[in-house]
């Protein structure tokens, strides 16, 4: 689907503030509300905008620990990825699953209520996942930047 400068202007504003009302978005992008609405509809129909999700702040719900776990899988097993991913989806504390090309095969973003709870999840739910060859944990201290903006 071709995207022109007007689409890009609208998307830039929308990415900066995804909850903005169409009228405000139109004003910032310098188009009429009707145009803005039509353009957004077209971007949705064309599959460029696939949807919107609410972002939950798990800390506000008492989940204090967030860990990025990197895994190397045993790739001699042909179903290593599929079986690992299927099992990881069953762990409720896993928020994100990413697969990579590089030294890391898979990354899981896992939350826990506190360090004791983390240890419990790590031992009982994570280390028991299939086909793990090696794993490494990065504990989140703080998020310095988290933006969806793109240099469009």
């Amino acid at each position, binding site marked *: *689907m071709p*995207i022109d400068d007007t689409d890009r202007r609208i*998307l830039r504003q*929308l*990415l900066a503030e*995804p*909850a903005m009302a169409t009228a405000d978005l139109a004003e910032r992008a310098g188009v009429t509300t009707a145009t803005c609405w039509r353009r957004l509809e077209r971007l949705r129909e*064309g*599959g*460029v*905008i*696939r*949807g*919107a*999700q*609410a*972002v*939950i*702040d*798990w800390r*506000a*719900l*008492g*989940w204090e620990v967030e860990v*990025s776990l990197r895994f190397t899988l045993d790739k001699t097993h042909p179903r290593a990825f599929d079986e690992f991913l299927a099992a990881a*989806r069953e762990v*409720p*504390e*896993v*928020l*994100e*699953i*990413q*697969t*990579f*090309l*590089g*030294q*890391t095969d898979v*990354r899981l973003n896992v*939350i826990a209520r506190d360090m004791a709870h983390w240890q419990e999840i790590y031992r009982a739910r994570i280390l028991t996942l299939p086909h793990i060859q090696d794993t*490494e*944990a*990065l*504990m*989140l*201290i*703080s*998020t*310095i*930047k*988290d*933006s*969806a*903006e*793109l*240099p*469009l």
Partner: protein
Amino acid sequence: MIALDDTDRAILRALEADATLSAGALGRRLGLSQPACWRRIRRLEEAGVIAGRRLVLDHAALGFGVTVFLGVKLATKGRVSLEDFERAVTAIPEVQVVQHVLGLFDYRIKVRARDIADFERVLRRRIMTLPGLGQVEANVLLSEERLPGPLG
């Protein structure tokens, strides 16, 4: 920290899947009146549990076909070098996420680029020139999925 009941959890699950649902539509699904549902959403927003909204985009359709996660280690540490590094890295338009972490690396960085050649440009001109930069590891993202989290 606020306490959630089953209805709150159902609201969060539904909005994580589709943040564009109106209070009326969501209320009908859960057997709540529009005002009752609206009040619950409002309470979750005020408590910071719903922290915002995230667009789900087809990045490839927007011309950003490559996502790379970098693990970065600083060569020198200390308060000043952290601040210099953070200021410089957050200013790079292709950098969407910067997280300070504890473990094998000091920072996790998410970079969106048009293609591998564009990523190489960002890496050489913007990343490798960052103040205090030490070791860098790159992993190219192949797939990404988000899960609802422990709302069951």
